[in-house]
C-alpha cells in the first residue's frame, strides 16, 4: 500500500492490509474458478477445432469444419433464434408481471414486510425439477384444467397445452419470477422516499410522481431482472426438456442431444461456446450501460 499509516509497523514481515494477505484470502475462490470454470471453457474452446470421426470418436487434427457447419446450417440458426425469442418473451413477461408485486411489497404499509419477501423465497425450498413437473398435472391431457373444462362441458377434446412453447415459457416464468421481483424490489427500496414527497409538493399527482420519479429510478432493477431472466431462460435445459416437445427444444437441449445422443463432442463444444458467447455478449452490453452491481444487489435480496 502506497499510503500506509506510519503507526502500522511491519510484524514479522506482514502488515495489516498486506496485499499478500488479500491474495491468500482470494486464492481458494480464484483456484476454484480457474479450475472448474475457466479451464473447462478453454478445453471446450479447443474441442471446437477437433475433427469428428464417428459417434464417440474424435481426432485432435485441427479443423474448422464444426464452425463451418454451425455458420452455414440454418438448422442451428433456427434453434438460436428460437432460443433468443423464448428468452426475450420470458423475460418481458417476467418484467411486466413481476413489477407489480415488487411495487406492492415496497409500497405496502403492512408491518411484516419480511413475511412477503419470505413468501418469494419459499418456492426455492422445493426442488426446481419437482416444481416444473407439477405443471404436467395442471396442463396435461388428464391435468387439472382439461379435466375441469371437460367436466363443465366447455370442451369435448382435451386442449393441447403441455409440450408447447407456451408451456415452456410458463414454466420458466414460474421459475424466474422471484428473481425479477427481488431485483425490482431492491431498486425500489433504494429510492429515497422524500423524492416522491418532493415531486408531490411540486404539483404531481400520485401517478405523475410515479412516472417522473419512481419508475425511472427503478429501471436499473428492472433491467437487471430482465437480463437475469433472459440469460437463465435462454440457457435453460430442464424446463423445455420436461414441458416442451421435440419441436420446442431450446439451444440447451440441442447441445445435450449433440453430446449425449450423437456423441459428437466437437460439434457439442462448438454449440456450447456459441451459446456462451451470445449470452456473454448480452450480459456485457448490459454491464456497459447499466452496471453489474445492480444484479448483485438483486441477488443479495
Amino acid at each position, binding site marked *: 500500500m502506497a499510503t500506509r499509516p506510519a503507526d502500522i509497523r511491519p510484524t514479522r514481515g506482514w502488515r495489516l492490509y498486506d496485499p499478500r494477505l488479500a491474495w491468500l484470502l482470494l486464492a481458494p475462490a480464484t483456484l476454484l474458478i480457474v479450475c472448474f470454470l475457466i479451464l473447462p471453457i478453454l478445453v471446450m474452446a479447443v474441442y471446437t477445432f477437433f475433427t469428428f470421426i464417428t459417434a464417440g470418436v474424435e481426432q485432435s487434427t485441427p479443423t474448422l469444419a464444426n464452425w463451418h457447419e454451425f455458420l452455414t446450417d440454418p438448422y442451428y440458426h433456427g434453434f438460436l433464434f428460437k432460443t433468443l425469442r423464448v428468452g426475450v418473451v420470458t423475460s418481458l413477461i417476467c418484467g411486466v408481471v413481476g413489477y407489480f408485486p415488487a411495487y406492492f411489497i415496497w409500497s405496502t404499509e403492512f408491518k411484516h414486510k419480511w413475511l412477503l419477501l419470505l413468501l418469494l423465497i419459499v418456492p426455492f425450498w422445493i426442488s426446481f425439477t419437482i416444481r416444473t413437473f407439477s405443471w404436467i398435472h395442471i396442463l396435461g391431457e388428464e391435468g387439472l384444467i382439461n379435466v375441469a373444462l371437460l367436466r363443465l362441458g366447455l370442451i369435448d377434446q382435451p386442449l393441447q397445452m403441455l409440450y408447447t412453447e407456451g408451456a415452456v415459457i410458463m414454466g420458466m416464468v414460474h421459475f424466474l419470477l422471484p428473481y425479477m421481483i427481488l431485483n425490482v424490489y431492491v431498486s425500489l427500496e433504494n429510492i429515497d422516499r422524500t423524492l416522491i414527497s418532493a415531486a408531490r409538493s411540486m404539483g404531481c*399527482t400520485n401517478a405523475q410522481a410515479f412516472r417522473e420519479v419512481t419508475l425511472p429510478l427503478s429501471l436499473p432493477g428492472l433491467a437487471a431482472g430482465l437480463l437475469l431472466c433472459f440469460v437463465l431462460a435462454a440457457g435453460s435445459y430442464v424446463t423445455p426438456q420436461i414441458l416442451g416437445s421435440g419441436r420446442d427444444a431450446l439451444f440447451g437441449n440441442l447441445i445435450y442431444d449433440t453430446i449425449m445422443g450423437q456423441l459428437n463432442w466437437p460439434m457439442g463444444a462448438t454449440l456450447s461456446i456459441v451459446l456462451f458467447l451470445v449470452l456473454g455478449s448480452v450480459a456485457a452490453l448490459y454491464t456497459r450501460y447499466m452496471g453489474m452491481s445492480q444484479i448483485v444487489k438483486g441477488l443479495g435480496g
Partner: protein
Amino acid sequence: MPDRVTEPSDPRPLAAGVSAGASAGASAAPAVEFNDVQIAYGKFIAVHNFSLSIEKGSFVTLLGPSGCGKTTLLRAVAGLVGISSGQIAIGGRRIDDVPIYKRNIGLVFQNYALFPHKTVFDNVAFGLKYHNVPKADIAPRVARALEMVRLAGSERKLPSQLSGGQQQRIALARAIVFEPEVLLLDEPLSALDANMREEMRVEIKKIQKQTGITAIFVTHDQEEALSMSDRIVVMSAGKAEQIGSPTDVYDRPATTFVADFLGKANLLAATVKDRDAGGVSVTLSTGQTVRVATDRQVAAGDKVSVVVRPQKLAVGSELPNRLSGRVLSTSYLGSRIIYEIDLGQGSIIRANVAVVTEPVREGETIEVGFDPADCVLL
C-alpha cells in the same frame, strides 16, 4: 403572484374569532394559520393542540429537539400527513381537504431530495411544468431562479456533480421558482459542514427577504433560529412552549425548558421570601438569598426557579446578587472563561465571564454575581 392559485374549491374561511384580520379581506389574512392542530401517528400523538398565526412575508422558525414534532408540522402544511383535529389555513383558505399537489407550497428537505436522474435544469423546471407554466416562460424563470442562488450556468449538470451546498441551493431554487405561497424548510442546513452552513444561512435569509415569501424554517440549532427568524416557536414533545421574537425567547424564556434549550441557562431552585415594589427576594436551595426584578405575581413560600444565563454572571463582589462556590472546572477561551461552579447541595452553575484578572483555578472558591434585572423568575 402564483401562476395558478390553489383552486378555491372550498374557500371556507377559518372559524371566526381566530384572527382579527380574517374578515378584512384576503390580503390581511395570515399567510399560514394553525388552529388547535393535533396530529397523530396511530395512537401516538406527535403534535398537541398547536395554534400559530404566521404573517405574510415573515420568517418563522420551529425550534426544538429532535423528535418534538417539527417535521410532522411541516409535513401537515405540505399535505404529506393528515391532521387528526383542528385546521390549517393558507392565505385564509382551509386546506384540510386540498390534496397535496394542489397546495401551492415549496419544500426544501434536509437531504436536498434532488431528482438524481434529472439535470439541474429539469429539477428546477419540475415545479413550473406541473404548475402549467407556458413552455416559453420556463427557461427564463429557471435561469432567474438559478441566478438568485448564484448557480447560473449549471443547468446541464446532474445533482451528483455538485457539492452539498450547491445541491441545497438548487433545492432552494427548485422550491421558490414557481412562486409558492409558503416556503417550508426542514433542517436545510444540518447536512452541510459548518462553514457552508453559515454561508447558506445568510443566503436563505437574503432570498427570503428579496422574494418576500413566507417561510417556515425547522431546526434544532438555536443559533440558526436566533439569527434568521422574525419569530421563533420553541417546541417540546409536540407542544409549543413559547412563541416570540428571538429576543423574547432568549431573554424572557417562558418555561424552564425554553431557558435550558436556548443557551443552557442556569436554573436555580428557590423559594419566594417576600416581594416589594422593585421585585422579589428568593431563597435559593443553597441558602443564599437573591433579588429578582420581576412583575410576576408570587406569594411568599412559592416554589420558583431563577434563570440566569452564564454570560450574565460576573466575577467579583460589586453586584447585588452574589453566589459563592467551588470551581469544578474551567475552560479558557482567550477573552472569556467558563467556570463550572458547585454551589453546594448538588447545585452546579456555569459562568461565562470576561477574563480581567488572573483566572481562578479548579478547587478554589469563587464569588460570582448578577444583576436583579439580568435574570428571570419562573
